[in-house]
């Protein structure tokens, strides 16, 4: 005879597993990437690297493309945390280059002088740095030309940009 309580637990367990499987099918993001996307917006990565990560000119410096960058996870974490000397990629680690602190590239602002990266508007915790790198690696890096799916992933299906992209794609297919 089946224990009713066990039966309910089994059903709940199966339901949860099914939900997780469906969520996994509909998302190519790493588990931490949702938080990473909000960090990507809040910390103004979106300002210079753009929503699609393609980089280029803006009112910040000239940002590199995160879609084509060969940097691995450790290198991405380093760059987000410490910025890039002699460029406009800012550092997001609160103590970077401060006083005698040489955690970044073995340097402080005294040794780097004018090459010290600018400080970011928002400092990020190690957890946030990891989250934004997860997001970049799962949703941007190596993903080719940004398309409709990328638009929906960033802005949502209701966003006018994405609706226009869909319409444009549809017109192109009809031609």
């Amino acid at each position, binding site marked *: 005879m089946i224990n009713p309580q066990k039966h309910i637990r089994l059903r709940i367990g199966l339901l949860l597993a099914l939900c997780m499987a469906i969520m996994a099918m509909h998302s190519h993001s790493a588990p931490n990437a949702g938080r990473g996307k909000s960090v990507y917006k809040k910390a103004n990565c979106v*300002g210079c690297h753009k929503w699609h990560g393609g980089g280029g000119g803006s*009112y*910040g410096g000239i940002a590199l493309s995160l879609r084509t960058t060969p940097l691995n996870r450790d290198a991405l974490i380093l760059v987000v945390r410490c910025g890039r000397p002699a460029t406009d990629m800012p550092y997001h680690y609160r103590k970077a280059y401060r006083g005698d602190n040489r955690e970044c590239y073995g340097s402080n602002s005294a040794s780097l002088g*004018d090459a010290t990266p600018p400080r970011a*508007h*928002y400092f990020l915790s190690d957890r946030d740095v990891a989250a934004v790198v997860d997001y970049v690696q799962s949703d941007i890096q190596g993903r080719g030309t940004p398309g409709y799916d990328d638009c929906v992933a960033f802005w949502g299906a209701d966003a006018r*940009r994405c609706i226009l992209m869909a319409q444009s794609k549809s017109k192109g297919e009809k031609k």
Partner: protein
Amino acid sequence: MGLRRVRWLVLAVIICSAGVVFATESTSVTTAERLVGAVGEPNNWLHHHGTYSAHHFSTLAEINRDNVSDLKVAWTFSLGGTEGGGIHPSAGLEATPLVEDGFMYAIDGWGVVTKLDVRTGRGKFVWRMDPGTDKDWAGEVACCGVNNRGVALWGELVLSHTLDGRLVATAKYSGEIAWERQIGAPESGETITVAPLIVKDMVITGVSGGEFGIRGWLEATDLNSGKRRWRRHTIAAPDEPGGDTWADDHEAYKTGGGGTWVTGSYDSELNLIYWGVGNPGPDWDRHYRPGDNLFSNSTIALDADTGEIKFHFQYTPNDPFDFDGVNEHVLVDTQYKDKPHQMMLHADRNGYLYAINRVDGSFIYATPYVQRINWTSGIDPVSGRPLDYDPEAKVQNYAGVASSRKKLKSDLICPGIMGGKNWMPMAYNPQREIVYIPVNESCNTTTTNPVDDDSKSIPREWFTAGGMHNPERFFGSLTAIDVKQGKVAMRIETEYPILSGVLATAGDLVFTATPDGDVVAYDAENLKELWRFATGSGLNAPPITYAVNGKQYIAISVGLGGTMPKWWIEAVPGLENINPSAMIFSFSL
């Protein structure tokens, strides 16, 4: 007639009378005559710039230099509207509120208009109009923050813009939208942040998007029909006057920039509208757009009825610096070198205050108002051209400090790209004949990332051809220039650039505010600080003054936004600690 019937009659008369009084007070009609004569209504602040002449001056003098130290908060009101959208994590508050007959109209960065009843010395909520701006759609292509600089009044309507490109007409009495029309095209990178200018029965709209490959324009909407009266492109096509100043072979004019995002001035006797035109695009690759690039970085004078450009004056031809020429125009009648002049004063981002004849566009003088200028060695005293301008060259080199295809990294450029002064309006005291300029004492560098001549800008993508850098900290100053002499009369330095604009009053006071949160009053005679109040937030909006029941108030929008906290925090350290806010502060004795 029975007693009961008489009582009812009396009651009805009282109710009707009260209704008439209420209706009269609540539905002031803003006529063209009132707008021309706004200087005669010091109790009100009817225009974005105070008057058509843009003096930002009031004859109110209850608050004066003898008693300003007693100034205190009368009321505050929270507008809301700090939420972000697009590439901006939060919105700012750059708007100048308007006041008409005891009612204030304020607007937040997303175009939400709030009407307040200020007749009782408080800010009492009346209505709120939310235009439902598409935040991500507009915020993604707004270079410089979620901004809206103010509303305009006409008839029984409040006119306002939205960042996603609409003009909205709202009934003053009810707050209901009477009509709206789409003017700007965010799908092409156009947004609207400018406060409308009412001229006769038209509302004039300008556009933002000089960093997104737009071709700028001004547009007049007929307020009676709600339809377009005229549109004038600010970047000349090949077959238009000025078209020969785009000497390329790839139709660079089509993405040539020329935004019009600061409200213009109007001379009703000459029937001319004066409006500043922004930088050419792409910002930092001038080889892509050889020629003087008219009418970028120019003041254009337009026939109000037709939009025809009657004349222009260009400040920085073939601009390599992003010296966006949009700043306001202060119309002044005065003597210079013993001759009467009808001037317009324009403090350009390039660091010079220009006095231009507003009848024919001829040059009168230019005076440096910042402490460091190195992009040119001066301004030609006859032509008004930069001394390093080469009339034979299609690509200007000026003093050689700019970045370009041939020199990818610039030297230090002074003033920097945000200018010696940005959109924040200066104030002119006609009694002293002094203009008070809010200054950003700054230098920076740029990098050019050349654009392929055969490529076109991608709609809604940045089209700057480079970026900028801030190796130095910015600071500010309030610089006073004697208009009759064309010389700096006095200056005080400030810790941060002044991003709030200036108000001058007949109380011999000069009001401004700091981005780190203080509203300040100075003595107009010597710029001695007389009063300061810490709002606990940041400010980048101009102060105004108004009066109700004979009592004078100073009011200002509080809520830091704009470019500096987002893009250049390293040049203004400390402003990262300012949290978003959207408040109105009003002060009185």
